């Protein structure tokens, strides 16, 4: 695999923005179609600088190796030119737009707001590089519009499936068969949990909520038929549906545990 090159913008303030090196959590499984190697970039969500004179440090002319389109030095320069003819102002605007995108994705419930922000910037840079006309008075408004599309695409592809055989056996999704102890205290705890679960479910995007509730509705063979129908509705194989449901469930379990600790 070729060495991935980073594009760095270094300002006179000696701070460096490393652009579009995807930030990956250690707990996040790599996507089936690619892995990201290399060091994690510096976190860069702080207040804007007062002095910007960005100099592109890396001399890479090749795109970051991604299945998707990647940002190159040339496309980054064109993006900055689009933002402002003044290089310093362009850098400031870039940082502000990125911060706003991250905030936007945060408040829309994105799991990876920084990644989504980078994806948004990538898309805009690609359009500029492709010579598409962008008819807006303020570039920030355009980024916002593209960000909304990225968000919509994210929810549509909420859980990228990986082959079931790639999962360790212990992680294969399975229905739990633990019987409930009808102890009174546990019953009360259960009621509380269900109330919190309803709250969690109400915060999910509609599609995700439909998937997880639809996946677990029905009894025995009815549930099997439900799942086949659900998979058909989402246009994915049943295995992929199972994995998506499993991941959503695991996330809900974690979030629920946190909620119950804090309530």
């Amino acid at each position, binding site marked *: 695999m070729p060495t991935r090159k980073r594009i760095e913008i270094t300002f006179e303030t000696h701070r460096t923005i490393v652009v579009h090196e995807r930030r990956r959590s250690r707990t996040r499984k790599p996507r089936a179609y690619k892995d990201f190697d290399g060091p994690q970039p510096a976190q860069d969500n702080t207040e804007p600088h007062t002095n910007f004179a960005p100099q592109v440090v890396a001399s890479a002319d090749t795109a970051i190796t991604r299945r998707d389109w990647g940002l190159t030095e040339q496309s980054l320069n064109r993006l900055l030119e689009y933002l402002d003819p003044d290089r310093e102002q362009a850098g400031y605007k870039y940082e*502000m*737009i990125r*911060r*706003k995108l991250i*905030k*936007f994705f*945060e*408040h829309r*419930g*994105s*799991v*990876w*707001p920084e990644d989504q922000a980078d994806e948004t910037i990538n898309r805009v840079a690609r359009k500029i590089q492709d010579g598409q006309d962008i008819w807006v008075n*303020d570039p*920030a*408004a355009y*980024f*916002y519009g593209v960000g909304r599309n990225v968000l919509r695409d994210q929810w549509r592809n909420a859980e990228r499936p990986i082959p079931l055989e790639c999962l360790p056996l212990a992680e294969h999704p399975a*229905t*739990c*068969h*633990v*019987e*409930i*102890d009808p102890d009174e205290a*546990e019953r009360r705890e*259960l009621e509380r*949990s*269900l109330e919190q*679960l309803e*709250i*969690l479910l109400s*915060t999910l995007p509609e599609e995700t909520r439909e998937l997880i509730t639809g996946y*677990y*509705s029905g009894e025995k063979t009815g549930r099997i038929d439900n799942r086949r129908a659900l998979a058909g509705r989402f246009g994915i194989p049943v295995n992929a549906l199972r994995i998506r449901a499993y991941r959503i*469930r695991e*996330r809900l*379990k*974690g*979030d*629920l*545990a*946190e*909620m*119950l*600790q*804090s*309530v």
Partner: protein
Amino acid sequence: MQGTETDESVIRRYLLGELPEQEQTAVEARYFLDDAFFEQLVAAEKELIGKYLRGELGSEDHERFQRRYLTVGYRRKMVESAKELLLSGAARPALTAGAPSRTSWWKRLLGR
């Protein structure tokens, strides 16, 4: 967005997820175009988190905050980071080790 509502009130409602979609979009469009409004929103969020950690939110806002900020990993981490800062130098409250098994409620939910 109501014409008579102050920015502070709108931001608060936005942060707590109380705004309908149309007004939410309006707020977002505004802070994308207005840097000062964006910075106001960022500051308001920090203040809101601080109030929550100090127990200064009313019961309704407290509940909304928990639903909004403690149910999503990224926002939960923001609160945890702020909590760390607030408690720096003081003993951290004991947290229940590990997540309790919730398979039983899940089974009950599936049986509905």
